[in-house]
């Protein structure tokens, strides 16, 4: 139960940390501390909860290799999957989830995990994998996740060219939430793409009139009106187009295209004077927008239709000049991109403190080319590419630091080995002098003697040196023949000697037990010390035997890892270069497309101008002939 609860919490934490989980869900999964039974598992959690995924993965892999996660086998494996996912290592994460998810977590968490993977894979262009992950979702998802899941499904259908099924899916959309409006919009767009303009018109018209309660809805309303207006224009219904186009906000992000469309709706019915109003307004806006560029040609086109030829020529000339200057700026931007510094500027202020899936580019570099590229930079492909580039750079720096460390370890090992080899003869000499066996033998003899003393209650054997001397003196005096003389003085001395001997014997007997205990204690301590000494001697012996093997093992590992670092660093550099070239290629292609459009407009403007000059010249010639 604890296991399932933990897995659910851990995975929810991972999912909640992503961009897909709204705040209420993140709050919902808060839970108490996890019961940690292997301290290394707790250490992994310490980094995981701080969203430091790289060190968390490294520690988990290390603990796993050392079999230090025996009490958290399934949890740690699934946590590893979650960490891989958070770190953007999605393929490896999916491997783990495919093996473990089914048996270890509740269905709702499982569904959310597959949904999250489906999103990642879709954003990274793994369409088949994304579809497979969506197919693994077993039941309706909670709250807004269900709407997002269906929207992703519709997107995948469209990506695979299956518009009819996308229309069917979106057409069956029920509900009145924000997602329902997006679904209706996408349905309308899909219908336009399928040529079902009238069906699309009903949906988009309704969306185009919805109450714009917030910026998001206002934006969606503008998009719907714009899509509908241009669909009508394309279908040759300019009068119908004008109404939705005029509903687009004048200060919104779609106003330029709407103004251009309104102008064309009027121009289509020959109301060129009216068409000039929105087009002239566009003339004062940023030339970066293709709608503004087109308006620069549309204005003189209308003026020419109104037979204001001289004004039309002036506007064409202005357009040619403006297009030329803009083209020059694009050329400079391409040159700067090709010089290779642009990607570095993206990451210049980035501390590389975190990596992986959740990282987002927060601001664009303050460079001239950013102006031309913001649309491209906002795309998933560019963002994901930038994440990869950033991750590669982080990995390279990580290995660079290890490369420095490994050199230090190399030196450390050499120094240790040298010191060991210098000390070894001294140690061997000392060990040779220490005869532990003889000490043990002496201790055993002492034990035997003590046992004998105890058995015989030989108190004299435990006498102090002074007592032993006294005893000797008394015995010596006792043996003196003079004491056997039959005189009263001799008898008196004999009595005194007997008394002294008795007193000494009494003292020795009195202290015998205490002395026996003390000596036994000292012998016991000596025995323990000898055991320790023997153990240490064995350890020293083992160390002397193992140390060369340890040095060899360390040397092998250091020598083996060092070239691996070099090799991986070189491959990372190569991958970074490939990533850089790919992303710059995409950016430069985008700029060249913009440059190409400007060239086309420029040619059209010059052609129109030439036609006007030709017309004027012909008119002058005609009037000259007339006057003649």
């Amino acid at each position, binding site marked *: 139960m604890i296991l399932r609860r933990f897995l659910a919490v851990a995975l929810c934490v991972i999912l909640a940390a992503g961009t897909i989980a709204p705040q209420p869900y993140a709050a919902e999964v808060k839970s108490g501390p*996890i019961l940690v039974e292997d*301290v290394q598992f*707790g250490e992994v*959690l310490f980094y995981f909860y701080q969203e430091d995924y790289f060190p968390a993965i490294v520690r988990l892999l290390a603990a796993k290799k050392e079999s230090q996660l025996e009490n958290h086998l399934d949890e740690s494996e699934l946590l590893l999957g979650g960490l891989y996912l958070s770190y953007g290592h999605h393929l490896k994460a999916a491997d783990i989830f495919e093996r473990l998810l089914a048996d270890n977590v509740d269905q709702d968490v499982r569904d959310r995990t597959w949904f999250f993977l489906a999103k990642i894979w879709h954003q990274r262009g793994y369409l088949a994998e994304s579809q497979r992950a969506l197919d693994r979702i077993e039941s309706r998802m909670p709250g807004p996740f269900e709407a997002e899941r269906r929207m992703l499904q519709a997107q995948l259908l469209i990506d695979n060219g299956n518009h009819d099924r996308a229309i069917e899916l979106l057409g069956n959309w029920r509900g009145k939430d924000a997602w329902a409006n*997006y679904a209706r919009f996408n349905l309308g767009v899909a219908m336009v793409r399928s040529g079902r303009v009238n069906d699309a018109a009903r949906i988009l018209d309704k969306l185009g009139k919805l109450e714009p309660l917030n910026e998001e809805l206002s934006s969606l309303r503008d998009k719907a009106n714009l*899509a509908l207006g241009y669909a009508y224009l394309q279908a040759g219904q300019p009068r119908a187009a004008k109404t939705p186009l005029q509903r687009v906000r004048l200060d919104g992000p779609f106003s330029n295209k709407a103004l251009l*469309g309104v102008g064309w709706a009027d121009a289509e019915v020959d109301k060129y004077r009216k068409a000039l109003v929105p087009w002239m307004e566009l003339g004062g806006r940023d030339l970066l927008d293709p709608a503004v560029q087109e308006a620069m040609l549309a204005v003189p086109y209308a003026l020419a239709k109104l037979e204001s030829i001289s004004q039309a020529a002036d506007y064409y000339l202005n357009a040619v000049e403006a297009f030329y200057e803009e083209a020059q700026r694009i050329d400079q931007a391409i040159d700067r991109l090709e010089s290779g510094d642009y990607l570095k500027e993206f990451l210049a202020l980035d501390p590389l403190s975190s990596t992986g899936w959740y990282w987002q580019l927060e601001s664009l570099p303050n460079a001239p080319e950013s102006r031309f590229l913001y649309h491209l930079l906002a795309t998933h492909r560019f963002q994901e590419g930038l994440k990869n580039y950033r991750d590669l750079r982080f990995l390279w720096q990580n290995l660079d630091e290890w490369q420095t460390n490994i050199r230090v370890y190399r030196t450390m090992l050499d120094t240790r080995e040298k010191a060991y080899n210098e000390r070894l003869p001294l140690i061997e000499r000392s060990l040779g002098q220490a005869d532990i066996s003889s000490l043990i033998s002496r201790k055993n003899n002492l034990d035997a003697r003590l046992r004998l003393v105890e058995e015989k209650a030989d108190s004299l054997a435990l006498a102090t040196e002074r007592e032993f001397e006294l005893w000797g003196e008394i015995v010596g005096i006792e043996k003196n023949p003079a004491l056997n003389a039959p005189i009263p003085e001799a008898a008196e001395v004999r009595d005194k000697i007997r008394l002294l001997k008795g007193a000494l014997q009494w003292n020795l007997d009195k202290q015998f037990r205490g002395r026996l205990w003390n000596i036994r204690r000292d012998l016991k301590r000596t025995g323990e010390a000898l055991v320790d000494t023997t153990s240490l001697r064995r350890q020293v012996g083992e160390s002397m035997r193992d140390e060369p093997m340890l040095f060899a093992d360390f040397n092998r590992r250091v020598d083996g890892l060092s070239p691996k670092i070099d090799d991986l660093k070189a491959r990372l550099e190569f991958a970074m270069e490939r*990533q850089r070239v790919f992303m710059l290629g995409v950016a430069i292609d985008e700029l060249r497309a913009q440059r190409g459009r400007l060239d086309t407009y420029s040619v059209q403007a010059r052609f129109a101008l030439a036609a006007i000059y030709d017309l004027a010249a012909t008119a002058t010639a005609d009037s000259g002939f007339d006057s003649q």
Partner: protein
Amino acid sequence: MTAKHFATGVLGSMLCLCGVFAQDLTPIDSDATLADVQSIEVDEAQARADFRSLDQDVQALKEEVLDLNRDLFLLEEELLFPANSQVAFFVSMDVGEYFDLDAVNLKIDGKQVSNYLYTEREVSALHRGGVHRLHMENLKTGEHELIAVFTGKGPSTRDYRRGATMSFEKGIGAKYVELRITDRISKQQPEFVIKEWE
């Protein structure tokens, strides 16, 4: 040049940008030939394939670097803290409602070896079950004394400073010592427990 010509181009680019599906839609252009459409789709598919090929390489490299980091991490630990002398000191928290941790000061055998200040993120990670490896040390076999001083805010957010001490026996093989902050509910006070891991 006609209004329709302009309109189709703009509609195409507009639809490319304004959908929820954003960049993945291809433009509508009734004037475009089938070949043009196919060409756009081929370009898109090619770009996707190029990105995917790069992404797969990056994924493979990530895995290799992670595995190498694991080996380097283990090598570093074994080299700097050999198993027979290694002692690791960890900090953990069980509930911890009565104590808001600021710092832990660690002394071993009278010598200060660590004075660690915790960030809010770290404290939060401890609250959720994370265990922090505070310090690693090489110690000889035998008895050692540890003194840990915890500072922070105690009950009623008052400054709080408490010490915990223990003697431990370092044998052969690595040893883990956990400094655990728990709650003594009966006294509504924090409690600091030192636990030895086998």
